[in-house]
């Protein structure tokens, strides 16, 4: 039987067991890299940030409190790494720029988009930047609202209303009613 995250974490903390940490990296690298690719919009940069995320996680692993999942903790570090990198480099590309471009999308484009029907690749465009991140964290990654609140840095109430609004928008535009 595979060891649980908790037992691997405890081995990493108590025995400084790098093999246990390696197992944790293997388990969670996909989600962390995927999340950073979504945030950064650049796979190479995302992978660099993912490496920094895991190095930081190793350094800070003793501070991990099992309040939420280990994955949520990692995603929080990943988001902080992304924000730190953005501040450092002063880059206006990536997530922020894409988000800004999307918020200036005018109504006619939305109408046109609506007229084209449910294009699965563009369905995220109907959501605001925060709504999109929250919906991905909750539905794409499967975090609880509480964990999504920690990862995004948004209050729990805001997360819940983003989810509610996001669901309504998706339902309205694409008729996701489970038919």
């Amino acid at each position, binding site marked *: 039987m595979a060891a649980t995250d908790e037992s691997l974490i405890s081995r990493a903390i108590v025995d400084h067991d790098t093999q246990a940490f390696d197992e944790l990296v*293997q388990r969670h690298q*996909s989600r962390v890299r995927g999340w950073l690719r979504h945030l950064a919009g650049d796979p190479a940069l995302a992978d660099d940030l993912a490496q920094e995320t895991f190095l930081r996680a190793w350094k800070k692993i003793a501070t991990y409190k099992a309040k939420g999942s280990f994955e949520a903790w990692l995603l929080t570090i990943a988001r902080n790494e992304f924000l730190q990198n953005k501040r450092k480099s002063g880059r206006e590309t990536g997530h922020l720029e894409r988000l800004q471009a999307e918020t200036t999308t005018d109504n006619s484009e939305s109408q046109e988009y609506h007229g084209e029907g449910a294009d699965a690749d563009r369905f995220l465009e109907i959501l605001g930047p925060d709504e999109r991140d929250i919906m991905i964290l909750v*539905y794409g990654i499967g975090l609880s609202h509480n964990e999504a609140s920690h990862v995004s840095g948004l209050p729990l109430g805001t997360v819940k209303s983003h989810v509610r609004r996001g669901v309504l928008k998706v339902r309205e535009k694409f008729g996701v009613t489970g038919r």
Partner: protein
Amino acid sequence: MSNEIEGQEEFAMQAMFGREIPPVADDGFSKTVLVRVRRKIWKRRVTLLSATVLGLVIALPTVGQLLLMLSNELVALAARAETSDTLGQLGSLASLLPLRETAQIASDELKNFSAQISPVSWYQQNRLLVGAGLLSLASLFMTHILDR
């Protein structure tokens, strides 16, 4: 029925948003992380060891000097205590006087004795040395804490 629809909607949402975070193959990623983690551990060990050795090299003469000075002071104090034979006098007094008066005399004697030691003046004379010694000991302690 409503629950079934909600469940299907949840499933559809998961499928839609799950596509935004597609699985990423490891492709040596975890190996790279592990190599970097191990390199970091070694770097830290080497840095701490070098810092400890350097700290000891700097601190040893000062700590040695401090210990020598303290031992000289203690020897001098012991010699003074022996010549004044305070304890012997107190012992004979205790057999003659009630306990309360003996305690009072002992307390006065102790005050006189500590006045002879005068730690304040000793500290003022050797302030830098004491500071250096304490810092050296603190740095060793800090190194130990950091390593943990």
